[in-house]
């Protein structure tokens, strides 16, 4: 079995995996980081979004082996100790969740979205960009609100450029 090495949430990890092991299984089963969820297994729902080298990626259709040498961030790696990331805080504050199953993927996509747009996000852009993340509970209204608020908080705390 090939060995893969990568950095996950700032920590170097390496493990033997089968060539066909998916990144999401590697993260959930080998590393026991279960905040990354599987909602569809087929790249549709966005529950499994993580950051690979700073870019949002659906981990259910990415091979672990493709991430050799990469830096991976999961929802567990977003907070700094007990301090939630501004986007996490925004989802919590704005009731941007119900069952919570979509939430980690939503937040990972949202952080990526803010960074790609340099912190300038209007509601239409948010709604458009969020099409790859499904939520069955909230009707999206509070999620969109949360992302707008999180975007502002990221911008004002200087985190857009920093990450």
């Amino acid at each position: 079995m090939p060995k893969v090495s990568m950095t996950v949430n700032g920590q170097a990890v390496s493990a033997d995996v089968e060539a066909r092991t998916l990144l999401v299984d590697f993260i959930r089963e080998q590393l026991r980081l279960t905040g990354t969820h599987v909602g569809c297994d087929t790249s549709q729902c966005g529950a499994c979004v993580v950051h690979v080298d700073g870019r949002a990626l659906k981990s259910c259709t990415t091979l672990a082996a493709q991430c050799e040498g990469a830096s991976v961030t999961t929802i567990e790696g977003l907070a700094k100790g007990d301090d939630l990331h501004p986007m996490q805080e925004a989802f919590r504050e704005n009731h941007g969740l119900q069952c919570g199953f979509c939430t980690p993927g939503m937040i990972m996509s949202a952080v990526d979205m803010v960074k790609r747009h340099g912190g300038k996000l209007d509601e239409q852009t948010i709604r458009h960009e969020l099409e790859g993340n499904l939520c069955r509970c909230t009707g999206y209204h509070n999620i969109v609100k949360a992302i707008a608020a999180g975007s502002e908080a990221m911008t004002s705390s200087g985190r857009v450029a920093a990450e």
Partner: protein
Amino acid sequence: MSGSPETGTLDPQVNTTGELRSVRTSVRHDSAAKHVSGAALYVDDVGEPAGTLQIAIGASPAAKGPIVGLDLDAVRTAPGVVAVVTAADIPGHNEISPVGAGDDPLLADTKVLFHGQPVFIVAAETREAARRAALLATIRIGEAEPLLTVEAAEAADSLISPDFNIVRGDPGKALETAANRMSGNFPIGGQEHFYLEGQAALAIPQEDGDMFVLTSTQHPSEVQKVVAEVLGLPINAVVSEVRRMGGGFGGKESQACQWAGLAALAARVTGRPCKLRLDRDDDMVMTGKRHDMLARWQVGYDDDGMLEAADITFLAKCGFSTDLSNSVIDRTAFHTDNAYFVPHIAARTKRMRTNTVSNTAFRGFGGPQGMLAIEHVMDQVAHRLRIDPFDLRMRNLYGPDRDVTPYGMTVFDNIAPEVMEKTEALSGYRARRREIAEHNAENPFLRKGLAITPVKFGISFTATHLNQAGALVHVYTDGSVHLNHGGTEMGQGLFTKVAQVVADEFGIDLDKVKITATTTAKVPNTSPTAASSGTDLNAMAARIAAARIRERLTDFAAETYDSVAADIRFRDNQVFVGNRAVGFADLVRQAYMARISLSSTGFYRTPKIHWDREKGQGRPFFYFAYGASCSEVTIDTLTGELRVDRVDIVHDVGKSLNPAIDIGQIEGGFVQGMGWLTTEELVWDAGGRLRTHAPSTYKIPTSSDVPAEFNVHLHDGINREEAIYGSKAVGEPPLMLAISVHSAIFDAIAGLAPPVVAIPLDAPATPEAILRAVTAVREARP
């Protein structure tokens, strides 16, 4: 007021401290911090015990026929496989019907009845090994003609149970004598739940052959019972537990049992913990959905559009087994009046048995189909008479002297007219109606439509015995509180609301109350968290439990501090005895030393309700929840494409326990209903295979489908019945607010047709359906 037999000395409306600190505030969801940091655990996230096996399902390749060959040798010898389990391995009963119908096998035995029906399971060291192995089976099914549509089932007289009708007056005669008559057929599509977390269960064998099951279910007691029956155990040998679900919507009520039962069976056979998580495709193929129906309607009305008679027959596609269909379709009949008084009315229901997956509970529980049908009739009549559909609806609402439902219940709390008028005003309906007429006059291709529709939804389980709940509350010697009840959390915020109520009962901060997983070992014989009744039932039971402990503490404080109960108040984490303040935790410690019990159960049953199904008469509902919504849409008459431009909602939650959670339910329910009526289409092929079994082909709403202008107002009111602190249930009713989207699409198309041409708009109104309707009315032009 001194309360009722159901609530003892408690006043359901008033707190003994005289004020509410947690209740009525928009407290965040109790797990919000865990959800945003990925720390909230679902079944598949909990650490597996060493040696846990993974299960995959071997499913029927045909929709109907005898199993003439089952060759599993290649499955057994596949790498990683530990056991292959068939119906023959079931030690107890191969039967999991939630209503004892005897038609719901855990595993198909001699015959299969729908495509995708589980026939065997594989337990293997890894999920992938199990899934690969399952594909190696040879399952041969003998030839048989499946019944795939309600029409085919009707022709074959294939029913799950006898017809059930709710009839008032003489609709046949009234139709004959009415000034005007119309009739039509209205197909109504089903709906996949698409809870983001698929079905999942982990079964762990215990000593004595007992079984522990961690499950994602709205009905842990049913899972417990099914596992016991499948394993041939008494119920007390099984514990089923659920901390949270990643969505339920009715799909994890009865239909979580099969997966828990299969995990438990595999655990029994192998002696090892076993986990089963359905992947999305299997979940969509193997679990039941909202019932699709065909509504055949006839209506008689006068020249002002007052309905004199309506006679609607619903052919419901139940699927291969009974499941919960009887109760679901009863509710279709209960809600065929929606908010309208129709003097002569018949809601007739036929429960068709088909060779498709067994349809089940889904938010609204049959009510949405009944309501949608009568709203469609309203639209047709308004179009025929050239009356503004809003005016026609207002005229037909329940009101003074026309306030009794077809099943004999007085609509004692009717606020539908108020709620409709408020929606009219807040949405600016009249002005927008004019603007839209102007827009449509100038735009031949992009046409707009506007509609306001009401909702009146009955709250209570119509199976009266289910309207009961239990809770268990402990206070520990540091003053911290442990809360448990029979309700389950699926994102709806039930746990938060119940904790708010308990915190206020003790006058302590919310964070002193620990919310714990629902388990059959703490509160037994629970009802499903369903029928929107979770808070009504469980918050009351938990309040009763907490109040018992508070009363004991009160008596103890009165004795210790030489006071009387009437002078003792619990608030701000303190207990005030006259002028003296004692910390809540201090008093608890003193009470413990004095050997006062600091634990209590609580039990609640809904008062006043009764229902005689034979006679079709009674008061099945404790009260009604109301709402109305206004939707504006644009359709493209060349492509059928649809955009929802704006939504305004006024919804009645009584006096809200938690406004933010309630508004979240309203928004989410509306969007889910909008999906049902616009983009979510289930397609089966001629062989009975579901072709829309993944989000690639089955489209639930995304963020860009939801209008940016989406205004939700809580109706300012109080529940006239004695529900917890004057609140009302909110889980299901908002789904039906989305009917205004369908009506608005109807409105947009209606403008293309002269009054004599009926508008053949099906549900869901997909672009194809819209285009079909547009084409049909264009071709029908005289």
